[in-house]
């Protein structure tokens, strides 16, 4: 992990410093099922404001609509009612300026392209020349400097996810969206990648939304953990995590960490207790 990539320790704010980074107001999302049946209400009035440079984890059981929230911030879904603003405008406006980064549970890499070309992809899609030094530094950041010429199927699941994260960070996005990026990995790899992601993030401070069902992961990485309940999805509880960064293993072994994790697990087990 080198410091070469990240000389700007502050989040990139752009010109719209007066706005929140992400703002959801009264967001409702319904999916039509069939003509005869009622549409499925996935989200029921979600309000969420994320500040610039904040790391927010959306935590909840599967089917609670947390991925739908992320997909709406990413501009991949439109809300049925309410509004979704990213950096003071519609997500589409940010996408057009290539200011959004995303990583999914399956790494979603181009199988015919090398690790290097996959990390260079955002530059090419934005129609910019590929800065070789920057791509090399990104690969170094995720610990894959020796695998630039390898293709995804020659790499392990963890390595593929590292490339996916490097690609998401390539254009120094205003907002970074992570949808269970380590969800398909084994517990040990997942823990190590979370520690590394936390360390990189502590230097970058990019506004980040992480979707996860892993309580420990959420508490370890986020400034705020937003607990969601299912069907229809709504926010049940917001847990600020104020521990200083970088959060190393001393943090995840500490009493305070486990106390928060246990409380949130209990909340997920019986969400009605946590509803405000």
């Amino acid at each position, binding site marked *: 992990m080198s410091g070469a990539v990240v000389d700007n320790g502050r989040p990139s704010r752009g010109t719209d410093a007066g706005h929140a980074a992400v703002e959801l107001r009264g967001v409702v999302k319904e999916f039509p099922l069939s003509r005869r049946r009622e549409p499925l209400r996935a989200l029921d009035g979600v309000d969420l404001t994320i500040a610039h440079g904040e790391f927010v984890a959306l935590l909840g059981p599967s089917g609670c609509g947390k991925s739908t929230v992320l*997909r709406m911030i*990413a*501009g*991949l879904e439109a809300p049925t009612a309410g509004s979704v603003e990213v950096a003071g405008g519609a997500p589409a406006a940010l*996408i*057009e*300026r*290539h200011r*959004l*980064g*995303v990583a*999914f*549970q*399956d790494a*979603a*890499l*181009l*199988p*015919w392209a090398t690790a290097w070309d996959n990390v260079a*992809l*955002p530059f*090419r*899609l*934005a*129609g910019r020349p590929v800065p070789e030094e920057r791509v090399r530094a990104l690969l170094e950041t995720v610990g894959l400097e020796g695998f630039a010429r390898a293709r995804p*199927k020659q790499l392990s699941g963890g390595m593929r996810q590292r490339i996916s994260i490097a*690609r998401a960070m390539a*254009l120094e996005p205003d907002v970074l*969206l992570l949808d269970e990026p380590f969800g398909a990995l084994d517990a040990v790899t997942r823990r190590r990648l979370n520690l590394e992601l936390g360390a990189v993030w502590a230097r970058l401070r990019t506004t980040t939304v992480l979707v996860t069902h892993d309580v420990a992961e959420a508490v370890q990485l986020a400034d705020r953990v937003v607990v969601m309940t299912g069907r229809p999805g709504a926010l049940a509880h917001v847990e600020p995590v104020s521990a200083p960064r970088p959060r190393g293993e001393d943090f995840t072994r500490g009493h305070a960490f486990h106390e928060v994790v246990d409380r949130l697990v209990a909340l997920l087990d019986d969400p009605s207790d946590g509803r405000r």
Partner: protein
Amino acid sequence: MTGARRFGTGVLGVGVLLGVLELVGRTGAAGDTWPPLSSVLSYGAGEPGRVILARATRATVAEAATGLLAGVLAGVAAAGLGLVVPWLRAGMSQLAVLLSTVPLIALGPVLVTTVGNERTPPVIAALGAGFAVFVAMSSAFSAPRTSLDDVFEVLGASRASTLARLRAPAAVPAFFDGLALAAPAALLGAVVGEWFGAPRGIGVLLVSSMQNFAVVQLWAAALCVSLVSLAAYGTLTGVRRASVRRFT
């Protein structure tokens, strides 16, 4: 080890089959129209058989290649058009299926009167090849959305760069899939097309051998076009396998 054994079994099977062919021909069990394989081969190897077969094969392969090229271009273009203009897709598929269900034999006389007997073989070859490539490519292009599509969308990729950097490379194995089917189809189309009065080619040789009861020459011509077709299919299957390794 198992690979060697499988190869050995394959060779043995082909050998038995060829032996039966030879035996039936020698004993005359199937009548005059079944010559022994050895006489077919020796006709093909000797003069003037070799010259006649080579000339006919060259002509047919040239027509098939022209038709294959035209068919591949048309098939890829049509599938690409369906990708860019989605509302055209359904209509084009129906048109393609309609064209492919018209029997080539029925199409022949129509083509002879419209494009002429010289150009009928490549046109029929193009129809067969184009359909195979069109079906393969449009099914590759209409593959369901994956998270890679989502990544491209979030990264703000234009339609053109999504086409060039995602759709096209992802469709390469399907293209060779279609091509491996299209090449024998083109060859068959060219031979059928030649029946309708082309000046030269395997099809012409087949018709004239039949009418002159040149049984050995008939078999040699059929064997020749089968071998070319098999070789084309085998080569393209190998290319397809390599492309699957490279593009998935």
